[in-house]
Each structure stands twice: as structure tokens, then as C-alpha cells.
């Protein structure tokens, strides 16, 4: 690692390697003095997250990355961690016993067999646990560097996505650390932040997602074009066209998942078909028509089958044609429709529920609810708006706001089409959404 290049560039200033190592060592020393083994890392600040991650690894304890930092999630998954390190105001941090004396933990050696624990939306109710070894992560990073490193050179790494998921962790934290590129924090949130960023006369890499990229409405003539990675949701062709027309940009789209890590990539303006990342073997599962993956980037020695249905040509290039399960992305966040339906059904006023993803003015979740008798009574007394708010507030500890139903309809029975079936279409019609704007993914 080039010691002249800052490891992190924070709002407060640059952090170089000696300070980074010392911050890790100080925390590691404290952690060593505490018995807990599995540590949930719930951080807003990427620098503090990274320090905590390496401190936990240095002491050969288990870092746990929860799917989000909602209070309900921390409660539901409480048996999956023994302690919490956090900088968030609403989270109760585990009290730490500081180490006695001043000696800083000497050279810490990480074993390749150590793992990081992730959680992701399972296809049934409970979140799915995924363990990823440092070996697998390192292999993936090496491939990314070999594939893209020459174009990245000594660019600074910016991000609009969190470090707490596999994509952000790899692209925004671990890969830059491995390659010796500076990580810039905090995260960027608004189109105008990107407008300011792109105007800078320095080499820039932006780790981002369609949530932000599909909302850029400014035009710039960029001499030094930033390199943009996007993942976490599909970049619509309309968004890709606009980015190219307005900014001359062709984001590198990455397809992957927590279970499989990175799988394929494309730049759709150049080539709309996806190709496998180097060292990843892809196929099409005959039973489901879904993408099958063999890869050194995850630890399972078996083939994993993803939920994405594909059409693949003889060269192995493919396009995505839909999902086989009821897992969707809403503005880049993964949601199991079955799981959230089960949760909503637990509410004392709900008899039954069906949810669906709508692609209206934005991606959102809609819910069609059949209330029980007390529910119907409350609807009469207090009105729809109050009931909506009641349900949404109740759901909030368990699901991030983006995933909670933004549009709700209360019905006495399921809407039927002409054949007497409750179809997606019949449900959608309750929300007055024009049919051609419905996203099938």
C-alpha cells in the first residue's frame, strides 16, 4: 500500500495508514478484553464501520452485517449476534470493558478462513444467513482489479450506497483498501451532490445504484469522465440512454446477490447482454430457467441457482427475463413479498393481505388488505388515512420505510377478473396504474 495515499478522506480530513492501523488496534485491544464473539456492526459512518470491521477480524471474532438497522430487525435477529458496535443514535451499544494498560495490539494476522456474516431476505419469512470467507472476498477483489483496475488507476472512490451490504462492502471498502485507492466519505445522496462531484478535475469512481442514477437530470460536457458502477437493481434502458445523452456516461452494471456475490456485468449502451465475471461459470438451470452459478467468490462448492430467469446464447451471454420467486427490489432494496405478507397478517386488524410491487412515479410496494371486524370498525370510525398510518407505523420496526406499503386498498373480498380469478392485473387495477408502466421484474 502506498503510504502517501490516504486510506480514507473524510469530511474531517484525510486518514493515512498509520492512523487507520492505530484506530483498529485500539478498538481491537478493547474487544479482546470483552468475551462476546459475534459483533453486529451498525454504522452510518463508513470509516468507523471499516475500523470496527477490521478490529473484530483482528481479534478473530465474528463480524455480523445485518440487513438493515431497524429496531425490529435487531430484535428479530438478536440470537445471531452477541454484541453491537454502532454510531447510530437509536441503537443501544454494548458497553465495553476497556483494556488496562497502554499497549496497542501488535501485528494482527487475519486468517483466510475467517468469515463475515451477512443476512439477506430469504424467500420465506426469516432472513437468510450467508457466511463469506476472506478467501472468497479476496478472490473476487483480485478479479475486479484485474478487470477494471487499469481504467481506475489512482481514482478516488465515492459512493451513494451503504457499506453494510455485499456490493458496498466489496466495491466501496474492501476493493479500494486492497488496491490502495482512497475512500471518500460521507455517502452522496442527492443528484446535485453528483453534479458537483462530476465537475471536479480529478479521477473519480462512483459506486452507485439506479435509485440515484435514474434521477439525474443535469447535462454536463465532461472531459474527465467518472467511472460509475451500478448494482442493487436493474438500470432501466431509459435511464442508461439519459445518462449517456446528458453526461456521456456508460455505467458498469454489476449483477449479483449476497448469496452468489458478483456474477456478471455489462455496459448496456455498448452491449445489452450480460457476460460472466472472470472465473465465474454460468449456466441456465433447466428446471427453473434461472441463472445457475459456480464461482470461487462464494464458499459453497456446489452450483447455486439464482431467482433470475434468463435467456442465454451459445456464447454464454444472457438477458434477464424475470424472477421465478416472489423476491423483488424496491428502489434497490431486496424484499420477500411472502415475508412481508406474513408480517402484515400478524396485525390484529388484518384478516388477509396481498402485496405487489408497482412501478408508478417511483417503485413502491402496494398492499390490498381484507380487514377483520375490529379493523372494519376502526376504518369506519377513523377513516382510511388514520388506518394507513397505524399499519405503516406498526410495520416500521421490521421493514425499512422504503419497503413499507405506500399505497393501501381495503377490500371486502379479492378483486376478480372476468374469469373469476384474482390476478396481479386485477390487484393492480385497484391502484389506477397505467398498464404499460408496470415493471415485470
Amino acid at each position: 500500500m502506498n503510504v502517501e495515499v490516504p486510506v480514507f478522506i473524510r469530511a474531517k480530513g484525510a486518514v493515512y495508514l498509520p492512523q487507520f492501523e492505530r484506530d483498529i488496534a485500539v478498538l481491537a485491544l478493547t474487544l479482546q478484553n470483552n468475551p462476546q464473539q459475534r459483533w453486529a456492526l451498525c454504522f452510518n459512518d463508513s470509516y468507523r464501520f471499516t475500523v470496527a470491521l477490521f478490529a473484530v477480524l483482528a481479534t478473530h471474532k465474528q463480524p455480523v452485517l445485518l440487513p438493515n438497522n431497524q429496531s425490529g430487525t435487531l430484535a428479530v435477529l438478536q440470537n445471531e449476534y452477541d454484541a453491537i458496535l454502532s454510531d447510530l443514535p437509536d441503537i443501544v451499544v454494548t458497553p465495553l470493558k476497556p483494556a488496562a494498560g497502554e499497549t496497542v495490539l501488535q501485528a494482527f494476522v487475519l486468517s483466510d478462513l475467517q468469515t463475515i456474516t451477512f443476512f439477506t431476505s430469504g424467500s420465506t419469512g426469516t432472513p437468510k444467513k450467508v457466511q463469506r470467507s476472506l478467501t472468497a472476498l479476496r478472490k473476487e477483489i483480485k478479479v475486479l482489479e484485474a478487470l477494471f483496475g487499469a481504467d481506475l488507476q489512482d481514482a478516488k472512490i465515492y459512493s451513494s450506497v451503504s457499506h453494510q451490504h455485499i456490493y458496498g462492502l466489496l466495491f466501496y471498502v474492501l476493493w479500494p483498501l486492497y488496491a490502495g485507492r482512497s475512500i471518500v466519505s460521507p455517502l452522496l445522496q442527492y443528484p446535485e451532490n453528483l453534479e458537483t462531484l462530476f465537475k471536479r478535475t480529478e479521477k473519480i469512481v462512483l459506486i452507485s445504484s439506479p435509485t440515484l442514477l435514474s434521477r439525474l437530470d443535469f447535462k454536463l460536457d465532461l472531459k474527465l469522465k467518472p467511472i460509475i458502477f451500478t448494482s442493487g437493481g436493474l438500470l432501466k434502458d431509459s435511464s442508461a440512454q439519459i445518462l449517456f445523452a446528458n453526461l456521456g456516461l456508460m455505467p458498469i452494471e454489476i449483477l449479483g446477490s449476497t448469496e452468489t456475490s458478483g456474477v456478471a456485468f455489462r455496459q448496456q449502451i455498448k452491449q445489452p447482454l450480460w457476460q460472466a465475471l472472470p472465473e465465474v461459470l454460468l449456466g441456465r438451470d433447466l428446471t427453473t430457467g434461472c441463472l445457475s452459478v459456480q464461482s470461487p467468490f462464494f464458499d459453497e462448492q456446489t452450483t447455486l441457482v439464482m431467482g433470475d430467469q434468463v435467456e442465454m446464447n451459445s456464447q454464454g451471454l444472457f438477458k434477464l427475463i424475470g424472477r421465478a420467486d416472489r423476491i423483488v427490489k424496491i428502489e434497490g432494496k431486496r424484499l420477500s413479498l411472502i415475508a412481508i405478507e406474513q408480517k402484515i397478517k400478524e396485525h390484529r386488524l388484518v384478516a388477509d393481505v396481498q402485496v405487489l410491487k408497482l412501478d408508478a412515479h417511483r417503485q413502491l410496494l402496494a398492499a390490498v388488505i381484507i380487514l377483520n371486524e375490529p379493523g372494519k370498525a376502526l376504518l369506519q370510525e377513523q377513516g382510511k388515512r388514520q388506518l394507513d398510518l397505524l399499519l405503516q407505523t406498526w410495520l416500521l420496526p421490521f421493514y425499512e420505510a422504503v419497503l413499507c406499503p405506500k399505497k393501501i386498498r381495503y377490500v371486502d373480498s379479492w378483486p376478480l377478473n372476468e374469469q373469476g380469478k384474482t390476478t396481479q392485473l386485477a390487484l393492480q387495477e385497484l391502484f389506477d396504474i397505467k398498464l404499460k408502466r408496470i415493471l415485470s421484474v
Partner: protein
Amino acid sequence: MSQSHLDLEIKQLIIKVLHLEDMTAADIDSEAPLFGTGLGLDSIDALELGIALKKKYNFSIELDEEDNRKCFATVNNLVAYISAQQAGT
């Protein structure tokens, strides 16, 4: 622009841009939290609202997380921040 006029305009903007159903400006409490409980807005709403405010008032969004949260916390706060920017302070 008077603050009460700005208050009404912002509420109407929120309802329009975020496609809130079954609501009028009168239903939004100027002091109630916009996010989480209260009006139940999420981070995408914040994004869309930020974009709309920029378009309408040329309102600049601070990079500071702390300031952001304060600014968007309630309609009253938005009115205050936008008035301040318009007055050039």
C-alpha cells in the same frame, strides 16, 4: 414570500411530488415529523422532495447528514431553511 404562504406551498408540493393519496395541505401538521412515524415518508421521498425543492426554490441541499435530518424533519423546519436561503443569510 410570507412564511404562511411558503408553508402552504411546501405542503402542496409534498402532496403533489410524493403522490400522497387522500390528503390535502390542511391534513399536514407543520410541526409533525415528516419521516418515520408522522407522515411516514422514506429516503426516496426525501430524494424526490429534495429534487423538487431545488427546482422550485433553487434550494441547496447541505452534504452534512445532521443538517439534512434537521432540515427535512418538519414542514416548519423546511420553511425556515428555505426562507433563510432566499433571504441570502
